[in-house]
């Protein structure tokens, strides 16, 4: 029982199980042990494979190929071969391929949602209502850009860079694929994409959509594998542009690896967002925003609102309401349509979350979790909130990438800004107040690439997303996002 508890009425809602049909994932038809290179399904040179498991049940799902250096070579060569024709294609025609892909994904949305949930562990409600539709929206939005690049802000007839090497994370596997692939292809680049080690299945399925769309061979190549595959891809001399979403540590490695090469780079890295709640905030909405900010996708979100900065006078009331709301979160079978919090993506990630939470306790913060029952198998972590967190605490400084919220307080807007900006990161921030002028005052001062005011975790293909400071550089989405894949006519590039 928390010392903040007040009687808000017991949340005693019962739900009957409402599982989505697992067969829809069609696991038996996932291309196993093969890479998608040059429009064909090929085995890796050394025949290496790796298993992918369900985070919720730990059952074996498939054995996917592990691309070695020779396979990465082959994929880059295929992308290089495809580049002249693809970049010379009229934008209108390139766009039509992307429109096809968007439609094919919409048509098979349910299948993709189930497959993503099975492989990633995130709730079907999120894959169904967010990941897959937003991925389709990104494809659709960028499809329309392909023949309008003269208006991208780079002058008339901007040119593509060549071969893009793209490495994406496991938290939004299909959506990150769409964020990377759609602008690259729309602008006339060709792509070698490496999906995350633990979540390769929807990318392989997406390759099937490319076949169905008659996308020319080599325009999009998909090489599965672990860190070594990604490292080989981003360092490959045949790659003209690298786009990476993932941890700040790996992002720095990539920036170092590309030093002196002149190859273009965009990085979307970690975050430690402050979600700032003022005393005059609409508290019911703010509580929903806080919950969405940190427990959406099990907190596996680079822009998660993992630091709650509460004005001191409402701290106890906010924490009490928050804990009351958290007690209603349903953790469990990700395929159940009523599930709010799914499985942690991997044993390794669970270990990291567990270790950081223990550090929070050791450093003197007060720990509270929902106490909900955890399934017997799989990787799980209860929604957790720490109060009394010091600014210097590891749980206030380091990205946990899990369902763990750290609560700090402030007294003045100036103090809120100072605390919010007091990390090496700068990806996102949240503001909750009814006072419009204060929102705009804060939005100017928060060092973050995205600021959500009286909302949180909103994404749209038309809206540029990306970080400042050690959260990376470059933007994804909107007109500004196209700049990562184009050079003005007459300048260097492919």
């Amino acid at each position, binding site marked *: 029982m928390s010392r903040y508890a007040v009687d808000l009425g017991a949340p005693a809602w019962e739900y009957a199980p409402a599982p989505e049909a697992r067969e829809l994932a069609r696991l038996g038809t996932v291309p196993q042990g093969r890479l998608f290179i040059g429009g064909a399904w090929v085995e890796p040179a050394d025949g290496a494979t790796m298993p992918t498991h369900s985070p919720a049940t730990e059952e074996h799902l498939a054995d996917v190929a592990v691309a070695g250096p020779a396979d990465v070579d082959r994929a880059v060569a295929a992308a290089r071969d495809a580049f002249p024709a693809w970049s010379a294609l009229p934008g209108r025609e390139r766009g039509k391929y992307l429109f096809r892909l968007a439609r094919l994904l919409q048509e098979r949305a349910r299948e993709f949602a189930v497959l993503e949930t099975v492989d990633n562990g995130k709730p079907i409600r999120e894959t169904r209502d967010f990941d897959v539709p937003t991925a389709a929206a990104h494809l659709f939005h960028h499809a329309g850009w392909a023949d309008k690049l003269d208006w991208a802000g780079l002058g008339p007839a901007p040119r593509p860079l060549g071969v893009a090497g793209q490495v994406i994370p496991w938290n939004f596997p299909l959506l990150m694929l769409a964020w990377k692939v759609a602008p690259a292809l729309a602008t006339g680049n060709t792509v070698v994409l490496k999906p995350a080690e633990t979540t390769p299945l929807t990318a392989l399925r997406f390759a099937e959509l490319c076949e169905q769309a008659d996308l020319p061979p080599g325009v999009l190549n998909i090489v599965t594998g672990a860190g070594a595959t990604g490292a080989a891809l981003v360092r490959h001399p045949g790659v003209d542009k690298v786009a990476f979403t993932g941890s700040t540590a790996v992002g720095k490695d990539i920036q170092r690896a590309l030093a*002196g090469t002149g190859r273009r780079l965009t990085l979307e890295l970690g975050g430690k967002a402050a979600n700032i709640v003022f005393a005059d905030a609409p508290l019911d909405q703010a509580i929903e925003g806080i919950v969405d900010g940190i427990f959406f996708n099990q907190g596996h979100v680079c822009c998660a609102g993992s630091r709650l900065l509460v004005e001191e006078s409402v701290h106890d009331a906010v924490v009490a309401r928050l804990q009351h709301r958290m007690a209603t979160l349903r953790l469990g079978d990700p395929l159940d349509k009523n599930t709010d919090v799914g499985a942690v993506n991997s044993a390794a990630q669970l270990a990291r979350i567990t270790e950081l939470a223990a550090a929070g306790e050791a450093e003197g913060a007060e720990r509270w979790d929902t106490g909900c029952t955890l399934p017997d198998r799989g990787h799980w972590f209860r929604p957790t909130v720490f109060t009394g967190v010091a600014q210097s605490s590891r749980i206030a400084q380091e990205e946990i990438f899990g369902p763990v919220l750290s609560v700090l307080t402030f007294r003045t807007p100036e103090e809120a800004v100072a605390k919010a900006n007091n990390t090496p990161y700068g990806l996102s921030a949240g503001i909750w107040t009814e006072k419009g002028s204060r929102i705009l005052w804060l939005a100017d001062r928060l060092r973050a690439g*995205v600021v959500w005011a009286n909302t949180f975790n909103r994404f749209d293909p038309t809206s540029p997303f990306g970080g400042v400071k050690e959260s990376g550089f470059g933007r994804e989405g909107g007109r500004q996002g196209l700049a990562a894949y184009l050079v003005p006519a007459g300048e260097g590039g492919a």
Partner: protein
Amino acid sequence: MSERLDVRRTSKLFIGGAFPRSESGRTLEVRGHDGAFLANAARASRKDVRDAVVAARAAQPRWAGATAYNRGQVLYRVAEMLEGRAAQFTAELAAATGDAEAAAAEVAAAVDRWVWYAGWTDKFAQVAGSVNPVAGPFFNLSAPEPVGVVGIVAPRASALLGLTSVVAPALVAGNAVVVVASEDRPLPAVTLAEVLATSDVPGGVVNVLTGQRDELAPVLAGHLDVDGLDLTGMAGATVEELAALEVLAAEDVTRVRPAPAAEPDWTAEPRGVDRITAWCDVKTVWHPKGT
């Protein structure tokens, strides 16, 4: 009647709005195209770079917080002051290059370039920003914001126009700058610092260091309070030298504008706002619409 002996200037650094010598006490002999002695320029040290970054960091919020109209007027004032010193700049450039005609043209072009960038302060956000038509009931606005402190290695040959072409655009959005002047031709940069000091540019917004490029550039590149790194003045350096600087910059994900293969032709008009936006990050703000 004897001829009057002229009063020569002591060549100093420009840090935080003041003109200190290098804390190291070192100087660098500057000679003209004909080998004649011109001056002893201060040879900045690692410590001077750090002091300059501290000054830049302290000055940056106020500069970024000034209205775009105000920044525009201040940068235009730089052009005014530069114009008034045209003869001095021309003489310095001519002493460095031996070409008086080209020197005069370079000064004129530099004045015009300050004017060009001064005019951008209250316009580039409309060019680089956007209202985003998101699929939902939200107000959604993206606008460029300065990255903070930009470290610049200034071009080696074009000591005034090249210097202007890299420093002025970084200032447009509200960044503060630490610039390492041309090692071979540092005197126009020293004079430009005197222009800046009398142009209402707040102290610390531009800090000018003279000295040895290869000694100072790594300190700038590796400084954790430098947010952007312009390596334009490293043109012609080896791949290994450039890689070493960019590796240092990666330690805190510093934005890098890499060195071109050769020093650009600065007399060409700027093609666009890329040198402004290079030192900006786009910020996107969301707010629900409702009653």
